[in-house]
């Protein structure tokens, strides 16, 4: 049975991806971070192939514990999906000093450094897996070229996603020749899943719809794996 680890699985795209891969017969290791959300546990009651593990992407020790848990249960991993992200603070303004620079660091720590630590930690398990696929959920706001004229802040989230894109590029440089393949995905503006399972009304996409598209894209073998591209739900390629 193939296996996948998905971070930030409490709600939104992460939860939708869990449902998708359970439906495809995967063993799903779901990274849980939000104590007040029980949607994952509800899903686990319906499907025994879901294994919920505590995973804080901002904490090196938490990532190591997650690696230990997956090692003990499965001993290998086929696919890794780094989805968890921190939006970061919005009140980081050059003209309203002092800027909260620790907010910039915190967002980088979770959104960019965390996925690199995750990849490093799970690499030995992925060496034993069959797929060797590393998937990262990024964002259009990480595109430096396209940020021209697109607002003047907040700083932390776009900066962290640009850094993530660079990190994924370096992983691709290092691991592609060893058989690893990569997916870098911009999901778009999705409705937020509330603790009771309902969806907010203020965004464009339903996370289940994006999850269906993303799961297919992550799982499918492509003919141009040597290229690292960031695509959205319509397979539009976003420049860096």
């Amino acid at each position, binding site marked *: 049975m193939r296996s996948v680890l998905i971070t930030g699985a409490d709600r939104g795209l992460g939860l939708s991806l869990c449902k998708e891969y359970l439906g495809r017969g995967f063993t799903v290791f779901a990274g849980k971070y939000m104590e007040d959300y029980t949607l994952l546990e509800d899903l686990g009651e319906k499907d025994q192939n879901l294994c919920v593990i505590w995973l804080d992407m901002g904490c090196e020790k938490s990532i190591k514990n997650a690696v230990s848990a997956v090692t003990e249960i499965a001993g290998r991993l086929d696919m890794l999906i780094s989805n968890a992200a921190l939006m970061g603070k919005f009140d980081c303004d050059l003209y309203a000093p002092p800027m909260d620079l620790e907010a910039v660091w915190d967002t980088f720590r979770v959104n960019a450094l965390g996925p*690199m630590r995750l990849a490093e930690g799970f690499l030995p398990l992925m060496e034993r897996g069959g797929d060797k696929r590393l998937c990262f959920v990024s964002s259009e706001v990480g595109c430096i070229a396209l940020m021209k004229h697109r607002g003047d802040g907040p700083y932390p989230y776009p900066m962290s996603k*640009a850094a993530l894109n660079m990190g994924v590029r370096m992983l691709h440089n290092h691991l592609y020749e060893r058989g690893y393949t990569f997916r870098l995905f911009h999901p778009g503006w999705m409705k937020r899943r509330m603790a009771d399972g309902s969806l907010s009304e203020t965004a464009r996409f339903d996370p289940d719809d994006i999850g269906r598209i993303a799961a297919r894209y992550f799982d499918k073998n492509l003919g141009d794996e040597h290229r690292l591209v960031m695509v959205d739900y319509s397979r539009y390629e976003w420049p860096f």
Partner: protein
Amino acid sequence: MNVLITGNLTEFENNLAEVFTREGYKVFTQDEARELGIPRLDYLIDTTDNRDEADRFTLDEGFGGEAVERVFRGNVLRSMALLETFLPLLDKGEGKRLVYLSSAEASINATRAVKSFGYNMSKAALHQFIQLTRNKLAPKGYTFRVFDPMAGEVTPQAAAESAYNYITRRRGTENHDPLRDDEENMVMRDAMGRQYAW
């Protein structure tokens, strides 16, 4: 014209200060700018460019999170704080030009690096900071330069001369073509004048 060069430790920084002084600019260090109470600044040349030997690991060698944090704080948070500090003086100046050091290695499109996660990721974050800052400050007349001094490939003297030309010359096109004009489109150039995609 008053120029602040934020560092004075490397040969490149010292050469750059000499070139600007030779060309008639008044050059200040951070301490001088603070202590002398200068009324305005025209150019801020942020030479922050931290590298760390402990950051030179591959993923197989173990991810050096502490080195990455040091480099990120040095390259990103320090630059943000510097701009915040000196922005009131720059607002009063006429030059309104912000200059940052980077490296072609930190181009997401171009890099072939497998080491120096901290350096490359921090510079990518800095590039996005500069782009967002450009959005905020360009309407007030600010222009930007991102420069790769090609350390180790070009002498510090040659890099300083190249930087001076890049920093001080207008990068516009005659007919002000917004698609081709460096002043309209933030770009990174190296000491040989080559442009790199982000």
